[in-house]
């Protein structure tokens, strides 16, 4: 036992024993840390560096060979002056404000409802709800794309027979058609995270609630929902991150509708800046802005939730 304690405490300087665990720990960490530096830290650093550059023409008329010059924050100013880029942020923000609550509400409702069913039925339905998570985002978008286009879609076909002519790909509706794809993909996954949390609730709590005369609805609202909170926080954070990254779905839907533009989302904007307009310096600046906004939002959400949790505990 004493060896365990000495291992958990910081070893005194000069102790011969301290070298071994330290070296072993870094040995285990090294492969991951090295690759993490190479694929996370270095690219971000390089993108920041690139975002500070701009090609400059030399010669009196600007006809000489282009050289790279230091541009300061010019690329950032340029990115933030583009109304299309700012609009793309507003668009994903609006998207997230609607899509995330709807999806989490659906996931929570399904998780709570499944919790009241018998084992076999719950298992079959859970598998049905979770299945879309195994469909890659682009494939899901191709799939729903076919279901949105009049002529192929059985949905517009059926609605047309009762006299409705829905336009899933119009200027006002395309964003929500994309939201539907994202909800379809991830609601079942989020439901599973919540179900896992519900399974961790000790059965005695339900017993106690029943003895106190609580019905199924009250048990769900007063006991299950509050205790499922950590899962909701987790799914909330990942949904915020996911929303800001919105890329594959609009890109796949784009050929089907003029409503989706080259700068529909921040990611799409940066991608087109780099590959369609060949301005990697501006694209780098846009990527850095996106990474910053995403980190601020998800850290902000986490600390907001944690602060409230601390207050509740008091």
């Amino acid at each position, binding site marked *: 036992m004493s060896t365990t304690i000495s291992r958990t405490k910081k070893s005194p300087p000069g102790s011969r024993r301290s070298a071994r665990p330290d070296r072993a720990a870094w040995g285990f960490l090294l492969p991951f840390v090295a690759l993490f530096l190479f694929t996370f830290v270095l690219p971000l650093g390089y993108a920041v560096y690139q975002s500070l550059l701009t090609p400059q023409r030399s010669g009196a008329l600007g006809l000489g060979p282009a050289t790279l010059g230091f541009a300061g924050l010019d690329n950032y100013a340029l990115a933030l002056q583009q109304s299309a880029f700012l609009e793309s942020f507003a668009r994903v923000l609006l998207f997230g404000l609607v899509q995330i609550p709807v999806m989490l509400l659906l996931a929570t409702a399904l998780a709570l409802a499944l919790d009241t069913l018998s084992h076999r039925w719950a298992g079959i339905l859970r598998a049905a709800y979770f299945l879309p998570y195994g469909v890659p985002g682009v494939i899901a978008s191709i799939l729903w794309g076919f279901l949105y286009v009049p002529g192929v879609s059985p949905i517009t076909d059926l609605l047309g027979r009762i006299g409705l002519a829905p336009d899933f790909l119009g200027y006002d509706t395309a964003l929500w058609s994309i939201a539907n794809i994202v909800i379809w993909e991830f609601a079942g996954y989020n439901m599973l995270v919540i179900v896992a949390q519900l399974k961790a609730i000790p059965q005695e709590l339900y017993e106690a609630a029943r003895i106190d005369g609580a019905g199924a609805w009250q048990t769900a609202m007063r006991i299950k929902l509050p205790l499922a909170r950590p899962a909701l926080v987790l799914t909330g954070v990942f949904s915020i991150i996911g929303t800001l990254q919105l890329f594959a779905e609009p890109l796949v839907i784009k050929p089907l509708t003029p409503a989706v533009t080259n700068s529909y989302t921040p*990611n799409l904007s940066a991608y087109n800046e780099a590959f369609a307009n060949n301005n990697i310096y501006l694209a780098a600046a846009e990527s850095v802005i996106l990474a910053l906004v995403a980190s601020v939002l998800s850290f902000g959400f986490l600390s907001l939730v944690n602060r409230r949790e601390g207050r509740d505990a008091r």
Partner: protein
Amino acid sequence: MKPSRILLVALLTVAALYFLLPVYWLVVASTKSSADLFGTFGLWFSDPRWLDNTSKVFSYGDGIFWSWTFNSVLYAGVGGALATLLAGAAGYALAVYRFRGREAVFKVVLAGVLLPSTALALPLYLLFSKVGLANTYWAVLIPSIVSPFGVYLCRIYAEAAVPAEMLEAARVDGAGEWRIFGTLVLRTMTPALVTVFLFQFVGIWNNYFLPLVMLSDERKYPITLGLTTWQAAANRIPELNQLTVGGAFLSILPLAAAMLVLQRYWRSGLTQGSVKG
């Protein structure tokens, strides 16, 4: 049955229809000819010819669909396995050793979890094209074997599941740190490792942005990227509509099967992450 019960079952059934309908449509559509795809009702079969369609998917463009399938399996299989091993070792080290810099490393890992992966794809491309890795298999594989979320899960699991007494006993018996990890620890951590592997496998299989920016050679594409090139070209070559649908159906078979079989296992693994989350 009570009315509230009937309402509940009705709602659950409607939800099931919503989640299954597109997949059902895909199954039906994958059996149709190009003409029937546009000309007949989408939710019912018409002159099924699934085998014929499937052989077209595999033979089109010198059998490029084979290459895409092979690439997807390579990226997701090898990438997922290596990512799991690295995350297991790193998570284990963070859980059981006390060393200077431990908390700092863990905080950086957490920041990595919260950083959107697609915000990173473009910077990765800029860096990889600078060092000459763009448009190689490595360009997709290397970023795929780094999973901060995996490290996070493995650390939490190892803290709870790897007993200090077991490590001490093994050390007293003269086993080295690597040997202990390779034999005892990996076995103890199996549930967490399987979870991490599944997450990473699905993540890589579904990944689109990274291969899109990194690869220009069609032969190195994964299925997701390949199918979107078919879909985008379907305006000019109508028969590609059918191939896109048929290919989409084939591409979701392996994951859907794995999802149904492993759902139970996955769920128990997820608990490790969400309880402390």
